[in-house]
């Protein structure tokens, strides 16, 4: 890392242009309870450049930009603008210093017109002004920045691309010299994206700078002049984009030092992988809560005694996949078979009855009732069975006994089982959920991001639970965004992108780069031609 910084300095010196960065970050660190969001980050933004910030989910991109725009204050390190150290108490101060951000989810008032949105919360907005004058002002600013907007239109009537242009206008009208865009193309059509890129190049050409946050490799290569890669909250490197290709970027983004520990090896006496799949999907599609098709024609087979990893950047259909596989969400098309039985149109009850356990993404919101007692929560899968229930009677004493045995299996010390489950740490909640689900997972366990937000001890516990199940002949479907974990544990890895499976690969015969490329939308290399990537 130090090497790279020195290289940058050398290059700048060598090119003979001693350019002062518009903005620099020096040694920036930000810690949240239990999480290092940023550590030792150095970052320079030069005038005239479009600088891509690349990293996986949770790599610390958003935190870093929130620090730069005054939303967070760094725990350590400093922000230097035009050579002067500054501190921002709020985004207003950051924008006053010329740093503005367009968030992924727009922050516009939908019922207001474009002109009103542009002038909202701006000290230069005249105290009294007519609608016509306000719109004229807006049109004038837009023209001077070469951004086509309709000043009189209501924001709610605009397309996403147009709304984004209003956001950009809002930032630029305040004389921003640094424009930060958080995954701006995620919401755009290709034509709108091309339009955006043109506007960004013009903006940068005027001596301003753009920070472009993305995890799409193609885009980064297309638009940026330099690229900084973050991983695990730290800066990996900053490189001129023309020295990179997709392969290099993928490697930098996901990291090379994947520890291939032997969790894939079976214990003696472990059940072998079955020939017939215990869970199989054929052309399964599903819609998300908003009705968008977020799972498209997915076909997968999971065999007994194997762990199938699901890789991909979060939000590419993994959530819907795990819900469809456990009956929580109905598939809109295709077939799902568990042990040869068609469960396509069945609900969560039947899936549980057929031995499908489910560790849901976001345990507090869907896997637990946070305000209820630990006992109530850990018996949620078995309250209807003997000995907890006899007929319509429910026996709290039997429930308490089961809760004690689950807590013991999970090695969670519980002072009081009547205590609300939300008072336990995230790691302990997840251990209890996992042990609870393992009890019913006689055929399949679907685990969605089981290690998200946990400390190392709890993560290791999760991993050992899964190998325990695998060795007992259960099929485990393991969704994660951590490639290291996936490689450690999975026998095969399926990669998802935009709701589709890009391919299923044998994890002992694939490298991280290939997975990284597939996560970025590259189809599986079934022909085995890794060279085609370029």
């Amino acid at each position, binding site marked *: 890392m130090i090497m790279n910084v020195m290289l940058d300095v050398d290059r700048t010196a060598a090119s003979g242009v001693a350019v002062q960065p518009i903005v620099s970050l020096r040694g920036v660190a930000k810690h949240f309870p239990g999480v290092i969001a940023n550590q030792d980050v150095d970052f320079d933004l030069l005038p005239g450049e479009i600088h891509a910030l690349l990293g996986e989910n949770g790599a610390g991109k958003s935190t870093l930009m929130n620090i730069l725009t005054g939303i967070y204050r760094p725990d350590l390190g400093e922000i230097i603008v035009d050579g002067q150290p500054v501190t921002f108490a709020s985004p207003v101060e950051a924008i006053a210093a010329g740093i503005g951000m367009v968030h992924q989810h727009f922050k516009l008032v939908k019922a207001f017109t474009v002109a009103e949105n542009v002038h909202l919360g701006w000290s230069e907005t005249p105290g009294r002004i007519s609608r016509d004058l306000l719109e004229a002002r807006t049109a004038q600013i837009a023209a001077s920045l070469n951004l086509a907007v309709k000043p009189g239109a209501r924001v709610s009537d605009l397309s996403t691309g147009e709304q984004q242009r209003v956001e950009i206008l809002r930032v630029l009208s305040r004389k921003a010299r640094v424009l930060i865009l958080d995954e701006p193309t995620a919401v755009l059509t290709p034509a709108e994206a091309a339009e955006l890129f043109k506007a960004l190049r013009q903006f940068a050409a005027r001596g301003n700078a753009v920070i472009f946050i993305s995890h799409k490799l193609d885009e980064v290569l297309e638009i940026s002049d330099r690229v900084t890669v973050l991983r695990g909250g730290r800066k990996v490197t900053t490189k001129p984009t023309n020295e990179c290709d997709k392969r290099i970027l993928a490697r930098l983004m996901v990291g090379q030092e994947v520890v291939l520990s032997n969790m894939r090896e079976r214990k003696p006496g472990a059940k072998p992988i079955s020939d017939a799949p215990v869970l199989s999907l054929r052309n399964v599609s599903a819609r998300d809560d908003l009705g968008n098709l977020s799972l498209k024609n997915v076909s997968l087979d999971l065999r007994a005694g194997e762990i199938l990893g699901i890789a991909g950047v979060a939000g590419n259909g993994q959530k819907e996949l795990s819900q469809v596989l*456990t009956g929580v969400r109905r598939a809109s098309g295709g077939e799902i078979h568990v042990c040869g039985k068609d469960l396509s149109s069945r609900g969560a*009850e039947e899936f549980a009855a057929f031995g499908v356990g489910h560790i849901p993404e976001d345990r507090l919101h869907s896997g637990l009732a946070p305000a209820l007692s630990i006992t109530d929560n850990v018996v949620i899968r078995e309250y209807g069975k003997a000995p907890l229930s006899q007929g*319509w009677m429910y026996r709290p004493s039997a429930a308490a006994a089961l809760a004690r045995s689950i807590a013991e299996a999970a090695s969670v010390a519980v002072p009081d089982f009547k205590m609300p489950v939300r008072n336990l740490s995230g790691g302990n909640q997840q251990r209890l959920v996992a042990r609870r689900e393992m009890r019913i997972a006689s055929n399949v366990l679907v685990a969605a991001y089981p290690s998200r937000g946990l400390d190392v001890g709890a993560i290791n516990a999760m991993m050992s639970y899964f190998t325990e199940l695998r060795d007992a002949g259960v099929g485990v479907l393991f969704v994660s965004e951590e490639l290291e974990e996936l490689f450690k544990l999975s026998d095969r890895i399926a990669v998802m992108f935009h709701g589709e499976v890009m391919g299923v690969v044998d994890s002992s015969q694939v490298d991280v780069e290939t997975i990284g490329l597939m996560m970025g939308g590259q189809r599986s290399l079934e022909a085995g031609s890794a060279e085609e990537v370029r």
Partner: protein
Amino acid sequence: MSIRIQRVPSENMAGGLAARLIAIVLALSIAAIVFAMSGADLGKLGAHVFKSTFGSRFGLMDLGLIVTPLILTGLAVTVAMKVGAWNIGAEGQFCAGAIAATAVALFVPGPTILVLPLMFVAGAIGGMLWILIPTLARAYADVSELITTLLLNFVGALFIYYLATGPWLDPSGLSFAATKRLPHDVPGFWGDVHWGLPIAVLLTVALAGVLNYTRWGYEVRIAGSNPAAARYAAIPFRRHLIVVMLMSGAIAGLAGMFEVIGTTHRLQGGISNNFGYIGIMVAVLARGSAIGVIAGAALMAVILKSGIALQTQGVNISTVLALTGLILFFTAIGDELSHYRIVRSKPA
């Protein structure tokens, strides 16, 4: 060494009780100071309040009559809370139950022994009908039951005024705004106190049992606490929501039935006496425990009866209401504080 305040995870029973006692004592002390400053004779006032509550047979009977509807409305609100719904409309369901029971009393001939069960059922159904629309709106269109149940309160109260001054007005001409004396009574249990009181208590105990000792009760708990978790565990949230909300309405309707048949014996405007709203306070005091409703209702009954006693001594109604509010306010603070403890620790 530093001292900090820490929130304790599970509440502590003795602490909670102590906090409530301190709250009541504090509120009464403040009230005493205010009364003393305005020149009232504290000893005389206190003696009068005691005599008209615990200190006499009539006082106790009045308490019994007041506590009956409060237990039922408090239970109605508590039961709805179990499934995650706020039934602010116990007042309206109370009115509907009273109207339905009165209709049976007025228009169904027969001996009391046969008509009484009919009135009981009518009261429950009346309350249920009154909460039906809010229930369905919440279950199928996610319309906040808070608003809909509240608004129907006014409809219920005004409907009683209409009936009692219009079509059902006492034909004898002896009263201007009430029906005639209803021909049936709920049998007496102790003096003026009718069988509504033991039935309310039994109903509370039975429901507490059902909620704690049946599979259904467990499912309602999960569904009410987190519908997403219910969906995940294949518990039918909507079905439980509908059943429990209708139950809640039925219980509030029974409160109205007992009030009109057992206590006032006539349907008249203002019969609900805010019992439905006070039921919300009872439920809050009971903190979601069905059994706690009995204690909460008893406390509210004493406060209400003391207020009436104070009014007869020339203390104005605003002062009485302020005192009631003060007690509840202090209790709420006490409840919250009982979740904290002071710990001494060395700074990390």
